[in-house]
């Protein structure tokens, strides 16, 4: 706005570049999603040929169920990564909420299940708000702040629970049913995860809030110049990520038999793996919720395929690591190729 008046020629060049980069990013997202679907289809075909029961409804349901909690957290992580930040504390947040909600229902079963769920969501949002405040108000880089809260939140769970195990029989069956019930034959966590994915895909794609998040991630300076409060958007992203961790924590608490203070330890890496595999740019500003969810599903499918094919389970981690490396390498090569061809097209 207050910059120098650009010459007509350079302005048109800049417009072309902007149009090119928008087209370019959309193209990249589409290539990534198509790539993930192709990889998924390839795995399905190969595994089904070897073991037809892979395609049975019960097995597909099992895959999606095992992925659902991870996918919810991955959606939250996607929001944060969009804004050029990262939340390493997600696993600790999920574990904290899972344990606290169970603890609450065991010691005060009379507060009722809806209140316990609300408490879980609220705690999640609060944990996210602490992260967001440290980053935006405190000026602490996200990777440092959330590495710190990874330790602190996990320490808090241990402080609350000690080494104590809360078994399934100690909480009301109604709470367990949140994860174990199957309306229309579909396990509830899958429905919840699908709803979360759809809502946030819509939010990011078609609402002002979503477009602003993209803007903040692509160029914080430019976003600031057009009058966006970058800090507020980043804060909101962290709070929403915390809220989704709270939701995932409630489901975690409902789904698993016995829970101790170590619940969900280490899933931050799986979550970030799903997000990266899904094509969300770790430097912000590009990617889709759909991609992140597909990334989570791909990881879950690989895991399931190893079980079905009775392959060594110990390969799983190595394969997910290799998948991340392959995905980013392919990204880099495709980006280079596409950018080159775009430059050629713009010159004509």
């Amino acid at each position: 706005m207050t910059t120098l008046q650009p010459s007509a020629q350079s302005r048109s060049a800049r417009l072309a570049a902007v149009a090119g980069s928008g087209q370019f990013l959309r193209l990249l997202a589409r290539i990534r999603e198509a790539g993930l679907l192709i990889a998924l289809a390839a795995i399905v075909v190969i595994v089904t040929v070897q073991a037809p029961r892979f395609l049975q409804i019960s097995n597909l349901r099992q895959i999606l169920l095992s992925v659902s909690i991870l996918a919810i957290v991955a959606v939250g992580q996607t929001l944060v990564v969009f804004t050029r930040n990262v939340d390493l504390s997600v696993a600790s947040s999920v574990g904290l909420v899972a344990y606290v909600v169970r603890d609450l229902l065991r010691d005060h079963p009379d507060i009722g299940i809806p209140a316990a769920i609300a408490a879980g969501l609220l705690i999640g949002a609060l944990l996210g708000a602490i992260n967001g405040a440290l980053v935006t108000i405190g000026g602490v880089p996200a990777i440092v702040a959330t590495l710190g809260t990874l330790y602190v939140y996990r320490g808090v769970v241990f402080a609350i629970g000690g080494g104590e195990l809360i078994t399934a029989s100690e909480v009301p069956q109604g709470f367990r049913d949140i994860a174990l019930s199957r309306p229309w034959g579909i396990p509830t966590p899958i429905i919840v995860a699908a709803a979360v994915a759809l809502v946030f895909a819509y939010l990011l794609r078609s609402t002002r809030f979503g477009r602003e998040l993209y803007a903040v991630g692509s160029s914080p300076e430019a976003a600031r110049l057009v009058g966006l409060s970058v800090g507020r958007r980043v804060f909101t992203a962290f709070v929403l990520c915390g809220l989704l961790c709270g939701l995932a924590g409630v489901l975690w608490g409902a789904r698993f038999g016995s829970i101790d203070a170590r619940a969900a330890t280490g899933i931050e890496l799986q979550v970030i793996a799903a997000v990266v595999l899904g094509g969300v740019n770790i430097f912000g500003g590009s990617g889709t919720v759909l991609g992140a969810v597909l990334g989570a599903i791909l990881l879950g499918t690989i895991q399931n395929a190893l079980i079905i094919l009775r392959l060594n389970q110990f390969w799983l981690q190595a394969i997910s690591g290799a998948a991340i490396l392959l995905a980013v390498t392919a990204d880099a090569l495709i980006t280079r190729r596409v950018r080159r061809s775009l430059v050629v097209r713009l010159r004509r």
Partner: protein
Amino acid sequence: MTRLARWETLLAALLVALFAIGIATSDVFLRGSNFSLIASSTMEKAVMALPMTLIIIGGEIDLSVASTAGLASAVVGKSWEAGWPLWLCLVTALVVGAACGLLNGLLVTRLGLPSLVVTLGTLALYRGLASVLLADSAISNFPAGFTRFGFGKIGGTGIPWTLLVFLPLFVIFDVLLHATWIGRQLYATGTNPEAARFSAVRVANLKLGLFVISGVLAALAGIMYTARVSSSRADNAIGFELDVIAAVLLGGVSIFGGRGTLFGVLLSLAAIATLRNILALNSSNAELQSIAVGSLLILSVLGPNLVRRLRGAQPGRLAGSRSARMAEAGD
């Protein structure tokens, strides 16, 4: 530079305060055996922290160090089980570590991928390979001489052998970083890679070398860990990367590169180890340790930021307040 010096003074003061608290609250704190316990349990992380400091100063990060250590540990165990002589097992582990670092470095420097993502991938990959090698078995029939290296002391003193591995390494890295052209190029690269490249710094080769060294030293740490717990398991040293990075950042190294000293990292390693030790001596609940370490890490960045902002709020310090406002907007 003065600001950094002040940060190290703060850390030294923190260390002194921790010692005072330790002496006041526990009878065993000052015993030689307690010090050797603190030292020997920190040495693996300390060895990994040396190259990590250099890598972060150079503007990159290596999340795969603990997995590399785990893989090296698995290699030592597996090859020892296969009847190889011990020296060959150790050399093989170090070579595997170098290969791990080389892969990281090649992906980062040749393909231009972000090190955060690359080493996150290899974190899973290397740990996965370790568990493919060992499954959930443990190999623990190592010769006594090897395990004595892990938890034994030198003669009658309380000094653990592993400290004797770390100290020369520290001196070498300190000289390398603070007294040679390599260190100066590293700071230049971390501050502004473009400018460094235009000043004839071979940024890619520098970083590639660092990643290889990081792999080798992570493997060395894996060997030390294997000797200390006298067992080779796939989950050895798991999660150490977070402790190592926390120590480096608390030591005053900027996550954005270009700033920090090895002396600060040494102080922060000592402070974290002492803090953990005091908490372990005084209370049964070890969970306080992680709360304390996490808070310390956050405060180490938050504290100076808040101080800067308070100063910036004073009248007549316009430049300061503007930079504070930009920090507030959050990047």
